[in-house]
């Protein structure tokens, strides 16, 4: 029985090691006790310096990951989303579609610096942040200990900015191929202030109405933006699709994607970028980031199988567009759950999202008859809602002991851990996000319509938005 022998030897060795260690510590204590007062003071100095160095090392590690994550999330919009959406439209609209994502990278950034960051994360009330950080006042190298104590507030600020860029970007899929560029700029700019900022503050801001970590009235678990990013954009997308009306000729005229190849590259970039989106939402480089990274990846993989598998059964062929759409649906659904669930529930969440979003897009959309050009609602609205609710089912203290009793002991998190109330909280979060998105978008569409008009003319739509809005074409192989 060699195992027993070696185990026995091991424990003997351990005992010996322990004794030696105790003896050494006793010696050290004796030496310390013999030391003078001056030596003690010197030691205290040294310890303080050591603590400082440890903190600096942690900060360096965390900051490195968070800056990387910020860059990854920006990559999701450009080129990720731009390629994903750009490939799905007809070729006369490819540039205009890409430009919508790119324009957001520019003007949401400017707005974020001027007012956005302050409205989302500045100290405020339960519903919106205040003006303390207007023009990024007070946002520098010092960490904002409320949100992320180990990274410069500038890092936190720029990381959160990338979320604010991609969220309105997702909506553009619903009004693709028919909205004026000017209308898109006005609408998404207003939407960012009226819908995104309050939701971000409510879910993530200190004292926000739905904040689970910082004293909210209805603690809603949303690790990386299931409600703030995906429900808000997906539901607003549905409102846009209905308000703007169908594209000319829809659904009679064939409008197949002009390049699934571009969409494929975009979806792969989205998948990779999502590691920054979800794992980065740990706001540190520790084990929670690893856990979120793993959950994210597993959900995406399972969702590919869910969507393409369902398609295979129903149509006889698993399509590439189905596989990549499935990945995005899974990534959407795991977003709120990524920092709260173990890998196996992540698989389940992804698989469910893949199947449900496929049915919504392939069956539900046709049944309801709205023209959500690129299925922003079917993927982000439906996947986001599903993910938010399933987070309330599968969240576990083993991954993220966010809820604690008065003594600091961890409390059950999700339904399966014995906290059915959390599902109710998740539902409140979902309903509020749906409500703000619907009401906000309706009002803003009306305002935009009055200000600049929403739709391009029939001639411009037939000509394509590339030429009519930007005076260019995406592909000119004759030049």
């Amino acid at each position, binding site marked *: 029985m060699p195992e027993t022998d070696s185990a026995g030897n091991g424990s003997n060795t351990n005992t010996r090691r322990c004794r030696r260690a105790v003896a050494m510590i006793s010696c050290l204590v004796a030496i310390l006790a013999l030391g003078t007062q001056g030596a003690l003071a010197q030691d205290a100095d040294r310890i303080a310096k050591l603590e400082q160095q440890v903190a600096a090392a942690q900060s360096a590690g965390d900051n490195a990951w968070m800056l990387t994550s910020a860059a990854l999330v920006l990559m999701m919009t450009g080129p990720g989303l731009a390629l994903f959406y750009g490939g799905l439209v007809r070729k006369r609209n490819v540039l205009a579609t890409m430009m919508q994502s790119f324009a957001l990278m520019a003007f949401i950034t400017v707005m974020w610096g001027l007012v956005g960051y302050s409205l989302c994360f500045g100290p405020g009330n339960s519903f919106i942040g205040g003006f303390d950080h207007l023009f990024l006042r007070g946002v520098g190298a010092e960490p904002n200990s409320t949100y992320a104590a180990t990274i410069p507030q500038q890092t936190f600020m720029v990381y959160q900015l990338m979320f604010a860029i991609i969220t309105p970007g997702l909506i553009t899929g619903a009004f693709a191929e028919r909205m004026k560029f000017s209308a898109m700029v006005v609408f998404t700019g207003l939407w960012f202030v009226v819908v995104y900022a309050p939701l971000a503050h409510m879910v993530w801001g200190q004292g926000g109405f739905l904040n689970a970590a910082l004293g909210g009235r209805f603690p809603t678990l949303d690790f990386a933006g299931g409600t703030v990013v995906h429900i808000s954009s997906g539901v607003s997308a549905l409102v846009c699709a209905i308000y703007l009306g169908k594209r000319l000729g829809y*659904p009679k005229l*064939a409008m*197949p*994607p002009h390049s*699934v190849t571009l969409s494929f590259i975009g979806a792969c970039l989205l998948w990779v970028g999502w590691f920054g989106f979800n794992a980065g939402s740990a706001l540190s480089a520790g084990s929670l980031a690893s856990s979120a990274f793993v959950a994210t990846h597993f959900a995406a993989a399972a969702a590919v199988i869910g969507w393409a598998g369902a*398609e295979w059964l*129903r*149509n006889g*062929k698993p*399509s590439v*567009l*189905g596989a990549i*759409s499935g990945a995005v649906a899974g990534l959407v659904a795991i977003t709120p759950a990524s920092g709260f669930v173990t890998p196996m529930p992540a698989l389940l969440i992804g698989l469910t999202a893949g199947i449900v979003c*496929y049915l919504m*897009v*392939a*069956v539900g959309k*046709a049944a309801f008859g709205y023209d959500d050009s690129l*299925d922003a609602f079917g993927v982000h609205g439906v996947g986001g809602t599903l993910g938010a609710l399933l987070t309330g089912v599968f969240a576990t203290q083993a991954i993220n002991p966010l809820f604690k009793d008065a003594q600091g002991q961890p409390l059950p998190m999700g339904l399966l851990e014995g906290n059915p109330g959390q599902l109710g909280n998740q539902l409140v979060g979902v309903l509020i996000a749906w409500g703000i998105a619907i009401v906000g978008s309706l009002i803003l569409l009306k305002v935009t319509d009055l200000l600049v008009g929403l739709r391009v003319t029939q001639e411009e739509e037939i000509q394509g938005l590339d030429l009519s809005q930007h005076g260019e074409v995406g592909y000119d192989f004759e030049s």
Partner: protein
Amino acid sequence: MTRIEAIIQPSRFEAVKTALHEIGIEGMTVSEVRGHGRQKGHTETYRGREYEVDLLPKVKIEMVLPYNLVDSAIQTILKHAKTGKIGDGKIFISKIDEAIRIRDEERGEAAL
């Protein structure tokens, strides 16, 4: 002079072109075209929506040849463009009244 217009499967084009060169045919005009004869198109499905694609990509080869090359050209095209499946294409033959080379204004077969 005879004009030969062959509409063939894109996948057979390289073989046909090489074989035509081998029998001494030097000039041709090639275009990528779309169309269908009896071969109906196919169905594409994107996110559950089916699209009927009835115009399929084909390659059109146009040549104007002296009479002595016409038969061998037709035989070569038939041999190399045929897959035996529906959709292999067609050959159209017509008479040409005159040919003029723009560079030196030479006329007739000498201009080919």
